[in-house]
C-alpha cells in the first residue's frame, strides 16, 4: 500500500532517477516518490509555487532526497533556503550524492542536512541504504509523536 505522504526526490540525472525508483519498487518503499529535476522545481513543489501552484502544502514530504550538483539551483542552495523557511525547516533532508569530498559533506551538514549518503555503486547496497532510510523515517515520525 502506498502512503500518500510524499518523498521528494531532487535529481537531474534520468538514469539516477530510474535507479532510485526501481530500488524503491524492489524494497516496497511505502511512500509515493515525487521527482523534481532541479533545485528551482524542488522549491516550487515544496512551496506550492510555479507549476505546483495550488498544491496542498499541508501534504509536506516526509523526506527530501537531495542531489548536490544540479543545474539552475544546486542542492546546497535548496537546503539553505529550506532551512530558512519556517514551513520547510524541519523536513528530513538526506543528501544523496556521488561525491565523497569531505568539504562537501561538511558544507551540507553545516547547512542543516540530516544525513549525507554516498550513492553506492552496487545496486543491492543502494537498495539496502534506502531500506535503512525507510526505518529512519518511521523512527523520526515516532519521535515527533512522542
Amino acid at each position, binding site marked *: 500500500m502506498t502512503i500518500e505522504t510524499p518523498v521528494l526526490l531532487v535529481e537531474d540525472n534520468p*538514469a*539516477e532517477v530510474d535507479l532510485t525508483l526501481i530500488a524503491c519498487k524492489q524494497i516496497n518503499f511505502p511512500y509515493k516518490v515525487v521527482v523534481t529535476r532541479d533545485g528551482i522545481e524542488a522549491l516550487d513543489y515544496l512551496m506550492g509555487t510555479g507549476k505546483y501552484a495550488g498544491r496542498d502544502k499541508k501534504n509536506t514530504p516526509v523526506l527530501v532526497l537531495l542531489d548536490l550538483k544540479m543545474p539552475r539551483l544546486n542542492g546546497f542552495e535548496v537546503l539553505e533556503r529550506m532551512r530558512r523557511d519556517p514551513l520547510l525547516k524541519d523536513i528530513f533532508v538526506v543528501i544523496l550524492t556521488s561525491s565523497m569530498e569531505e568539504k562537501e559533506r561538511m558544507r551540507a551538514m553545516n547547512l542543516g542536512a540530516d544525513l549525507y549518503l554516498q550513492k553506492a*555503486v552496487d545496486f*543491492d547496497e*543502494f537498495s539496502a541504504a534506502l531500506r535503512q532510510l525507510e526505518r529512519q523515517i518511521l523512527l523520526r515520525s515516532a519521535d515527533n509523536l512522542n
Partner: protein
Amino acid sequence: MKTTHHKKSRHPASPLLRVVVAAKRERSGGAGKPRELAELRVRLAETEETLRAIRAGEVDAVVIAGKQGPQVFTLEGAEQAYRMLIECMNEGALTLTVDKTILYANQCFARMVKCPLEQVMGSSLSRFLSPEDGATLRPLLKQADQSGSKLQVLLHASDGSRTPTQISIRPLASNGSSRETFGMVLTDMTEVRRNEGMLRASNKELESFCYSVAHDLRTPLRSIVSFSQLLEKTLQDGLAPEAKSYLQHTIDSAKQMTVLIDSLLNLSRVVRKEMKREKVDLSSAAQAIAAELKKHQPDRQIDFHIASGLTADGDLELLKLVLRSLFDNAWKFTGRIPHAVIDFNKTLKDGREVFFVRDNGVGFDMKVADKLFSLFQRLHDEKDFPGTGMGLATVQRIVQRNGGEIWADSKMNRGTTFYFTLNGH
C-alpha cells in the same frame, strides 16, 4: 705639482693589477733655459705615454707619491667588472648607512623607484617605503650580521606605484670609516607573486578536477554497474552462461574502475590535506587497526606484536593512514601463511630512529623494489593478491609530507619489512 718620474709596473701583491707609479718632484732650481726645456720635453713624453697607456686600458691605477705618502687613484679596470656587474643587475643594489641614507644606488634601483639616479643618492631609503616597512627595517639594520637578513616590503615609486619587493641586507666590511654601511639587494617580486597566483589558480583547478572525477565519473560508472546488475536479475535464467559471464566482467570492471578513482581521490586528498602537527600515539593507533583486521577475519591465525610507547610528531589522520595501509599490506601478504606474525616496533639505523612493520608473508623480489612506491604498480598477480597499486604510493607521499622516508626489505617467501622515518627521527 709636477710629475717627474714615471714607470709602468706590475703591483707585486696583485699580478692582475696594472699600476702607474708617479712621484712628485720639485722643480730643479737655477738651471738654464735649455736644460729646463729638455727636462720639460722628457716629462711631456712621459705624460703622453701615461695618457696613451690609460687610454689603451693598460693601467688600472695611478699611485702618486707625495709628502703625505702615496695616494692611489683608481682608473677603469680592477673594479670595473664589479661595477658593471652591479650596474647591469636586474635587482636594485644599494649601499646605505644605518640611518638609511643612500650612499650608492645602481640604475636598476632608480628604475624601480622611477626616480633619477642623482636624486636617489644622498636621499633616505624611507622615502621609498611605507612608515610601517621603514619601522620594520630599522631593527634589522641594527642587528644585521654577516649571515644577512631578508624582508618583504612594498617599494613606493615616485609616481605613487607600489612594487612587492624582497630586500636582502648584509653589513659591509668596515673600510676604516667610522660610519657603518650596509649592502642591500632589492628584488622585484611582482613576477614571483604572479607565479604564486598562477600556482594557486592551478591548485584550484586541480581541486575542481578532483570534484569532477569524484562526481562526474562515478555517476556513469554507477549506472553501468547498477543497470548491468538489474539486467542480470531481469533476465536471470534466460541468459546463456557466456552472456552471464560477459555481464559479470562488465560489472567487475566498472567496480574496479570505481575503486581506482576512489584511490586516486584519496591520494589527491592526502597530498592536499592541511597538515596538523601533534604528538601521535602510534602504538594505540596500531592496536586499533590490528583489532579491526582481526574482527573482519576472526578465523585467521595471526599474532600482532606491537611495541608500546611508540610516538611521533605528525598529522594524526595521515599517520593512521600510513599504519592502516602497511598493516593491510602485511595482512594481505600473510594470507597463505598458516601462522602469520606482524611486528610493529622501532629500531636505530645509522643513528636514526626508524619505525618498522614486519611480516612473515610471501615477500617480493628485491630486484623490483624500485617499483614498490610507484602509482598503479603491483608486484603480485591480481588474482592472488587483489589491490589497486595505490596504497604504498599514498603511504610514501604521507611519509614524505611528514619529513620522513620509507623503504622496504624483503625476501621471497620469507616476509617483508617496511621501514619509515618521520620528521628526521
